[in-house]
């Protein structure tokens, strides 16, 4: 009973709910904008990595490998605390979005590359033989086929981005986690933290289940 009052204190939860919702709103904004920016960056990086002159291609590869290796928290702290020394001062939201986008773009580029490389060579050759330009080949023939294949891994990556938005609380951005810790301090009770965990789950668990279903469906389609 005591345990219940401590972790699932309804009174505290109700009182701090508006704070959590404010945090959730910011978390979703950060998550969605980073996912979209990461998709664009990833597609551009992937095209450079696959189809540009050798020198630029190597640079794209280095970028992709570096940003897949660096811990997100380290990158975020560099963006927020180190960049001001060279005159670049970003808000907590902008810092978090920058770090999330840079990393998500690297992963997304690899996902797109795998999707494109899985398309048989004959599809490129048939397009070329018909006179389609490289751009038309990509837009009309290759990417529409890749999309099916990359949807499960892209959804997975999006889940990771949303999870990682919680790191933004270390640069004082009032996201869901930050709001929850603050509410916990105000109420002197940890129930808001449990509430925040429940909200994360409510959004991400269905997404995880969706990925599993999509993967099963696409695997069946290929068999």
């Amino acid at each position, binding site marked *: 009973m005591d345990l219940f009052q401590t972790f699932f204190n309804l009174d505290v939860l109700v009182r701090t709910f508006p704070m959590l919702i404010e945090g959730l709103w910011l978390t979703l904004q950060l998550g969605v904008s980073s996912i979209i920016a990461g998709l664009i960056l990833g597609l551009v990086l992937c095209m450079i990595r696959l189809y540009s002159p050798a020198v630029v291609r190597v640079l794209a590869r280095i970028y992709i490998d570096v940003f897949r290796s660096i811990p997100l928290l380290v990158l975020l702290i560099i963006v927020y605390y180190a960049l001001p020394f060279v005159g670049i001062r970003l808000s907590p939201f902008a810092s978090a979005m920058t770090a999330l986008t840079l990393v998500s773009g690297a992963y997304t580029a690899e996902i797109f590359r795998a999707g494109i490389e899985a398309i*048989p060579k*004959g*599809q490129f*050759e*048939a397009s*070329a*033989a*018909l*006179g*389609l*330009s490289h751009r*038309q080949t990509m837009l*009309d*023939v290759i990417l*529409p*086929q890749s999309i*099916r294949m990359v949807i499960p891994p892209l959804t997975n990556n999006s889940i990771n981005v949303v999870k990682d938005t919680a790191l933004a609380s270390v640069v004082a951005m009032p996201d869901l986690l930050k709001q929850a810790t603050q509410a916990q301090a105000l109420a002197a009770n940890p129930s808001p933290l449990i509430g925040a965990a429940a909200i994360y789950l409510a959004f991400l668990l269905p997404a995880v289940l969706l990925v599993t279903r999509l993967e099963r469906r696409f695997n069946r389609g290929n068999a």
Partner: protein
Amino acid sequence: MSGYVSIRNLRKSFGTFEALRGIDLDIGRGEVVCVIGPSGSGKSTLIRCINRLEPFSDESEIRVDDIPVIPGRSLAKVRAEVGMVFQAFNLFPHLTVRENVMLAPRRVRGTSRADAYRQAEMLLARVGIREQADKYPSGLSGGQQQRVAIARALAMEPQVMLFDEPTSALDPEMVGEVLDVMKDLAGTGVTMIVVTHEMGFARQVADRVIFMDSGEVIEAGPPDEIFANPKEARTQNFLKAVLHH
């Protein structure tokens, strides 16, 4: 006098291996040429150079309708005039049969949707699959897919059609329906270059048969001559092997 498709000193290497060792060939407008030869002799490589799916070095020259087959604008022109049909069909699986046929005219020529649609209807009727227009390629038999591939290539109204073993991936009972479409096409004045193992087709339809071995043209001539009395020993051996099994 050079041909509608003219090939001069065509050399092509994969690493240190020479797949084509200096091919010279002139093909006239409207001519139907069948290319035969053993596996690995360079037949596919030769026709894939004509629309530059295989890049080749500057010492070699290919022209189609006097346009040099070199990267850039002139290659785009050549590819708009040269259609190709592959052994593996290579249809676009995410598009319906009709959309497969409409795509290139819409994108490359800027044809209106209505015109492209009408043209697709006409071409699909011509290859005998108008009823399948709204299906996806995976719902068709191999023979039907290859006929769609031919219609797709024809939609660009090519002057030259390249065929790389168009019936080799088909079940035997479907070979005939594809060869029939090709025979009809041969009567329309399109220049055709056909790599094939179908000796009956070559004998019946070709104006000229070219025998290749080890990256070279060994012998060329009208089908009657090549099949009835080949001059070169290698041609004789090859024909003996393929006609008596």
